[in-house]
């Protein structure tokens, strides 16, 4: 029996009132609800306030470089596809520095759950515009105002994502439920989490989000209809849908990789003799 106590970590270095706390709790609750023991979970993160998350709960952790979360998670998952692999990062980390990896992880459909703490601003470096900042957002590095934001959900649907979802860190039950679904989805899953930054984003506050977010399924939504999903992913001004925007099941990268047919690579023996037959091909 897995309990919240199993996932309880040490003190955090986040600002009081940070949206990250809600995400941490929702993730812990989801892992407990799925009865996943911590040693079977690997959380990979990069750099940013969000990327500190795995240090604040108990699980296997590789906290690597800025933007490179998905490649590290991909390598680890292929080495041991019996692990539950969760990648965690922020909007700058995942949609800026790691944008290329985001596209290709979606395309490959590797079975990783990707949680993006999207607070529309850089926190760790103190308040610069991120790829998802609202247009015109004035910061020290964008005195002219931020350009058009990237829409991660539209990009994810276009790049072949099979589980494209959004939640809000102020709605922990919703977020936790969505994370559970994402982990259970076979293939790459994106959970973009709207998260206020209490220090550097005076606009997109808890109150701002609360006024706008609504469940995508109310009054009705067919997440298997790609064109409808695209349309819903575009909604932002005034009304922001949260929930599973798009869902599509297709074979995962692991299922299509012949090398993994005989079980996790990490469990296989190393035998130099297995290349003996190959040598004769060079005679």
């Amino acid at each position: 029996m897995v309990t919240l106590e199993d996932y309880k970590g040490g003190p955090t270095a986040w600002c009081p009132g940070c949206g990250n706390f809600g995400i941490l709790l929702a993730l812990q609750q989801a892992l407990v609800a799925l009865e996943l023991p911590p040693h079977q979970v690997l959380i990979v993160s990069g750099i940013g306030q969000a990327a500190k998350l795995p240090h604040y709960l108990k699980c296997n952790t590789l906290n690597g470089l800025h933007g490179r979360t998905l490649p590290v998670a991909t390598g680890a998952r292929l080495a041991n596809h019996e692990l539950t692999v969760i990648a965690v990062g922020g909007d700058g980390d995942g949609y800026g520095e790691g944008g290329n990896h985001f596209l290709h992880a979606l395309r490959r459909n590797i079975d990783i759950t990707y949680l993006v703490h999207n607070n529309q601003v850089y926190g760790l470096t103190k308040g610069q515009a991120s790829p998802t900042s609202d247009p015109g957002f004035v910061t020290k590095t964008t005195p002219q105002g931020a350009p058009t934001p990237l829409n991660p959900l539209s990009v994810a649907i276009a790049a072949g994502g099979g589980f494209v979802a959004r939640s809000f860190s102020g709605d922990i039950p919703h977020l936790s439920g969505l994370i559970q679904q994402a982990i259970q989805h076979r293939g790459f899953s994106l959970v973009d989490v709207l998260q206020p930054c209490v220090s550097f984003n005076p606009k997109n506050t808890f109150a701002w989000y609360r006024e706008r977010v609504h469940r995508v399924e109310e009054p009705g939504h067919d997440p298997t209809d790609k064109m409808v999903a695209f349309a819903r992913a575009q909604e932002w001004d005034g009304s922001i849908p949260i929930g599973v925007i798009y869902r599509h099941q297709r074979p995962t990268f692991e299922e299509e990789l012949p090398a993994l047919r005989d079980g996790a690579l990490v469990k296989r023996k190393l035998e130099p003799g297995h290349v003996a037959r190959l040598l004769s091909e060079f005679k």
Partner: protein
Amino acid sequence: MVGGEAGQGVQTVGLVLARVLARSGWWVFADQDYESRIRGGHNFFRVRAREGPVHAHSEALDLLIALDRNSIDLHQSEVAPGGIILCDGEKLKLEQQPPNTLSVPLERLAREAVSNPLMANTVAMGAALGVSGYDIGLLEDVLEGHFAASGTEVVQANVQAARAGYHYVTSELKVRTRQQLTPRGKAGRLLLTGNEALALGALAAGCRFMASYPMTPSTSIMEYMASKGPELGVAVLHAEDEISAMNMVVGAAFAGVRAMAATSGGGFCLMVEALGLAGITETPVVVVEAQRPGPATGLPTRYGQEDLEFVLHAAQGEFPRAVLAPATAEEAFYLTAHAFNLSERYQTPVIVLSDHYLASSYTTVEPFDLNQVKIERGALIPLGVDPLPDYRRHRLTPDGISPRAIPSHPGTLVVTTGDEHDEEGHITEDAGLRTRMMLKRLGKLEGMRGEALPPQVYGTSRPQVTLLGWGSTYGPLREAVDLLDAGGMAARLVHLSQPWPLPAQLTGMLSDSEGLVVVEQNATGQMAHLLRAETGIAARGHIRRFDGRPMSPAFIATRLKEEMARW
């Protein structure tokens, strides 16, 4: 030599002939020269056969198979006295033929024999063997193997085309090269490129994960491993870029498998940050850096040893690493397997520094002895059922090497980060802990230094001149020593297959060498710098080539005499 345009089948002709020679007991070395284009231009494939091991090319040609006119213009001056230029005079419409030209209507013979002018190349193979006095049956065997995947009809057509060429020169022209070749018996040796040998070494060592991005001259390593991945259980991933590739390798190695990447200098530039991540997280990774001349795109298909200082210092901050530079294809196999052991025993990155000359040249080697490949995984804790009490990934130990658990070990958590960390693997900024962690990691370098591969020494023990080289210049340097010796100069070669950390005995070996000459395929003398920085020994002379072309033994001998004339 076989010369022609890209797309004319230069490599196929050369490789089939090289295999015929290798299979009949000759030792073969074949180097390739090609441009960064798929069609046109000028390429050549140069095959050298000797009665003993050979690891260098020679510029003197006994037979030039010119598939285009350009090959005659460019290489006729390299044809040795008594050598022959074999070409299709009808097709090339040569107005003036060099006197030693043997014109064989390759295309017409192909059309007559198999109604396919594209098989002119195979006709040339037959003609080449005929003119060298060789047995056509050997060629038929090799063609059978080479085209087996294309079906019996293709094999038969090639055999007929080869016979047509052979028959034409043996019965109608009755011309022979000055040096006639005869089979040397069945040898059972392998004929392969450095890249193939290296990939086999990785596979033998149990590499289970490879991620890379295609880049000349490293690409065929990934291609070979990908072709064997399904049967051997190796995940080979063509990543979106080298940044991703190297991070994937770090992730896979952290998760407990042997993992590698292969690239060239430009791709390695992109891998550098993740190399540092492997360093600080103490993750064992193997990276092959197959050099080519730079900077930027440089000379993409050519030869250079310009990245030694780069790989020594790549990434911000300080962490231990080893750099191996195989001298031959045989070493590419054994040292790559060794690289995996080193990286796992010291839990740190190991770089295998290769280059175009090693990567793309074919050599005959005795079949690799798989019993020599030992799997040493150091402090890795096998996956078990019992939890590991008080496990800490970065535990401070006397030798700096921490027990390495595999994520998913029951009741055990493996935590690490690219930030400075405590023993458990959580972020710290504590000054004392930082110092201890730095000393822990850097201390591993001393262990690696203690077991650095000794230099290979060849030649006289009382030399007038000592040549110091590293990596793939071994073959040309070794033969240069023979040439110098034959010319009355007592020369010695000291050759490094491990440029970092340098073996401790190097200083003693070189301390009494007044005539020390460092030979490198770069412009600034990177090994000479390293030698001086590490041992205080300054070379008296330098031979450096940086035009993208390999030094031949004769080139080295000539340049050495010029160098010594200035002393």
